[in-house]
């Protein structure tokens, strides 16, 4: 049975019960480090199973569409609001600092660049980590502790295929769209904040802002959020499906999904920003 657990190549899959932790090193002081590597190893195996489930039939299209709808609609208002608020803040801050340095004419460009390059994507990633990470984490965790996930397995259906793959795919597909919404709200409110001080049409603001910008400024940062989606979906499903310990476990799973997915979103952003600067100069 151990073979089944660790031979993902054959498209195999072991039950996701967290009961098969087997590595125990004698020294206690290595405990947390072992746990960390074990966690990473298990996450890798889980990821492989999800990939396998996602690329081999039968595909759970209905569940995918349901998740797209659910994840999209539950995050959209939050993302729009967060995007709008950062747009205003950026606008106020940029006005203050650029005026001080006598570069006020760069204001629209500064706002546009910072929104589409960084604040839009990362704000979306973090808001979705919170909302969807907790949602998926708690949902799957409560299914796990009430043996519903075991029941799916006992019915000879793969929980990875039925539950994890559609949720993760939906996160990957929805994040760039939500990022567009955050970008738009951020730019719009950034303009509003400017226009209140100094009359300027939205059209003027946008054309001044996008002068000198090309698709390389826009597409890579937007599409990098697919990676955020993968991280959020993967970690939330993983933490949810390995939950143990009743109702308390459900709370822990929801918390850890949010904490870990936001953390990894930020860490991934560091790497992605660097890569984007290298490949799309």
């Amino acid at each position, binding site marked *: 049975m151990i073979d089944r657990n660790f031979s993902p190549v054959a498209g195999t899959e072991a039950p996701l019960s967290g009961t098969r932790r087997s590595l125990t090193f004698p020294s206690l002081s290595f405990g947390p480090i072992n746990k960390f590597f074990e966690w990473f190893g298990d996450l890798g195996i889980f990821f492989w199973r999800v990939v396998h489930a996602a690329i081999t039939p039968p595909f759970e299209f209905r569940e995918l569409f349901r998740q797209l709808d659910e994840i999209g609609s539950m995050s959209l208002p939050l993302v729009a609001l967060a995007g709008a608020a950062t747009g205003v803040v950026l606008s106020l801050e940029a006005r203050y600092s650029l005026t001080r340095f006598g570069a006020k004419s760069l204001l629209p460009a500064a706002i546009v660049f910072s929104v589409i390059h960084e604040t839009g994507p990362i704000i979306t990633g973090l808001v979705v980590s919170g909302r969807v990470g907790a949602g998926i984490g708690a949902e799957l965790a409560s299914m796990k502790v*009430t043996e519903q996930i075991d029941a799916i397995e006992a019915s000879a259906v793969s929980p990875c295929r039925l539950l994890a793959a559609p949720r993760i795919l939906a996160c990957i597909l929805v994040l760039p769209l939500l990022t567009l919404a955050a970008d738009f709200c951020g730019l719009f409110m950034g303009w509003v904040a400017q226009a209140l001080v100094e009359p300027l049409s939205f059209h003027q603001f946008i054309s001044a802002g996008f002068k000198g910008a090309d698709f390389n400024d826009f597409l890579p940062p937007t599409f990098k959020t697919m990676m955020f989606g993968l991280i959020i979906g993967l970690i939330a499903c993983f933490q949810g499906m390995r939950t143990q310990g009743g109702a308390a476990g459900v709370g822990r799973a929801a918390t850890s999904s949010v904490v870990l997915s936001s953390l990894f979103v930020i860490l991934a952003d560091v790497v992605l920003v660097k890569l984007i600067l290298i490949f799309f100069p």
Partner: protein
Amino acid sequence: MATIDQVLIQAALKPEEATKGSGVPAIAVDDLHKSFGSQKVLNGISVAVNRGETLAVLGRSGTGKSVLLRLIIGLEEPDSGSILIHGRDIAGLNLDQLCEIRMKMGFLFQHAALYDSLTVEENVGFPLVHHKKEMSKSERADRVKQLLAEVGMEGHLKKMPSDISGGMQKRVGLARALALEPDILLLDEPTAGLDPISSGEINDLVLKLQAEHHTASIVVTHDLHSAKTIADRLALLNEGDVVVQGSFEELQKSDIAFVQEFLGHS
């Protein structure tokens, strides 16, 4: 439209029928050990169930009865020992092969484990949706109604699991377990929380499946009356092992103190 009986009889004539009478037990568990951390739960347990036979598993709470059933369907892995289903060791199987075997097993969880986002009807239809893709919507609806009628739940199709009582959830769980006409049934306390009339109906249903479909069943129960009615053999578990195994009369004659105490208190 085929009645459930016809469907079950047809299914009974399929390949697994070959193993019937050939001496290969449907379920053979040998020297099974299972611990959780430092807690030893199963301690070298061995049981075998033939087709057309029902084994009742008795024992105090926490002796590992549910764990035994979970091991048999592969939801947990044993520390050592073997589990053979129709003569095939499930330890060596990959997931596809294991799924093939699971499709022929019906599992009723101790707390029913109904999908809480699906209605009663969708819960029972779940295995059909995933494994009987050739079935049309209306065929499936008919089959679900039949199954729910078998357990006396045909009047609650559209309810959510949270809106029905624990005993009713149990019965829906049983209907779901029977959806794919399994030839092995693993029932974890099917009559717990049921009124005497409903539990009598469940007993009759298990007996009927056994007679018509030659189902091999392991039924965990605290209900001695039910065990006496449906089981060919009873196995009494204590501290992770079988203390005594045999017919109800044989158990009554046993001079082991624990057996007498157990039967005496029931």
